[in-house]
């Protein structure tokens, strides 16, 4: 499965959840598959989805799911120790690990070679790390939501992108409706 197929499959689970979604094609895919006010789309700033999601989770009690990628986690590796040492119960970092920089033309990342993100997350202090295959994503995500223990998921899947339109929504609108969804 490629990322967009996973997102389509887990869309019913993501409904009404607070989502912080990675820059580029991941946000475009999520926006096209299931736009909702509780989706925060990153339009810039590669690498910070995991940090933004952690900040939201630490500031309030609702469950927060960051949908991140292997390339973006690699560009902000300092995020793993920060998450490992401050993990709130209501945070799920779901790393879609397709071994490539999808938004820039599927250039390979090091996770497709020797680098193991799940092992890195564990070494960084994350207590609940699960690595799953694409077809098992929905089951693992639902378990993580139900467990409320703070979970890092590494979802291994194929490289590839769906062709979706660019998000043209104003960033202030994205932020405003996300904040209202948190308050609701």
């Amino acid at each position, binding site marked *: 499965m490629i990322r967009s197929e996973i997102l389509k499959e887990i869309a019913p689970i993501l409904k009404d959840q607070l989502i912080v979604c990675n820059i580029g094609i991941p946000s475009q895919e999520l926006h096209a598959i299931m736009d909702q006010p509780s989706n925060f789309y990153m339009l810039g700033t590669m690498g910070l989805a995991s940090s*933004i999601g952690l*900040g939201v989770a630490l500031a309030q009690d609702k469950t927060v799911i960051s949908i991140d990628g292997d390339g973006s986690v690699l560009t902000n590796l300092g995020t793993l120790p920060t998450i490992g040492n401050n993990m709130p119960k209501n945070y799920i970092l779901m790393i879609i690990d397709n071994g490539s920089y999808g938004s820039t033309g599927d250039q390979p990342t090091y996770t497709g070679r020797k680098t193991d993100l799940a092992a890195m997350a564990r070494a960084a202090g994350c207590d609940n790390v699960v690595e799953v295959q694409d077809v098992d994503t929905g089951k693992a995500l639902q378990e993580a939501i139900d467990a409320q223990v703070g979970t890092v998921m590494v979802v291994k899947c194929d490289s590839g992108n769906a062709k979706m339109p660019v998000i043209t929504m104003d960033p202030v609108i994205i932020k405003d409706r996300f904040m209202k969804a948190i308050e609701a």
Partner: protein
Amino acid sequence: MNLDKKITDDLVANDISFVTTVPCKQLAGVIEEIDQHPDIFHIPSNKEDEGMGLCAGAWMGGKRPMIIMQNTAIGVTINTLATLTQYYRMPLPMLISYRGELREPVACQVEMAVHTKALLAQMNIPTYHFHNQSDVEELDMILKYTFMCNKPVAILTDANFWGGYGDQ
């Protein structure tokens, strides 16, 4: 005047309850004060752009955030300031140790000091420079201004403000 306590009291009075830090020798005292204050959640960052991501999330989650860092971080965070903090229009007070100014003992620090105000000006970031201890009296107003206008705002604090480096 105990600057560390005065600064921390101003943060608390302005309901700032989520503070991320990347350390600097000049900021050690205020970081310690913040870390021990029961009304502030202190989360150290490994890099300043990561810290700005945490602050963006905390703001959307309902907390007033702040970042404390060195001026060298301006070189690290230009993209984050432009495409996250400014693009989504979020407030972010930045208490910045202004290394490389008067009474600085380390020559290399001057190399980023000479770019600091130019970069902040290029980014249209409101910038205040604390050089004398009495300048701290403006901090309360600067914090209120930051959360009024929803922008990143820089507070540069140099070695003279902090009282120099002792015997150096």
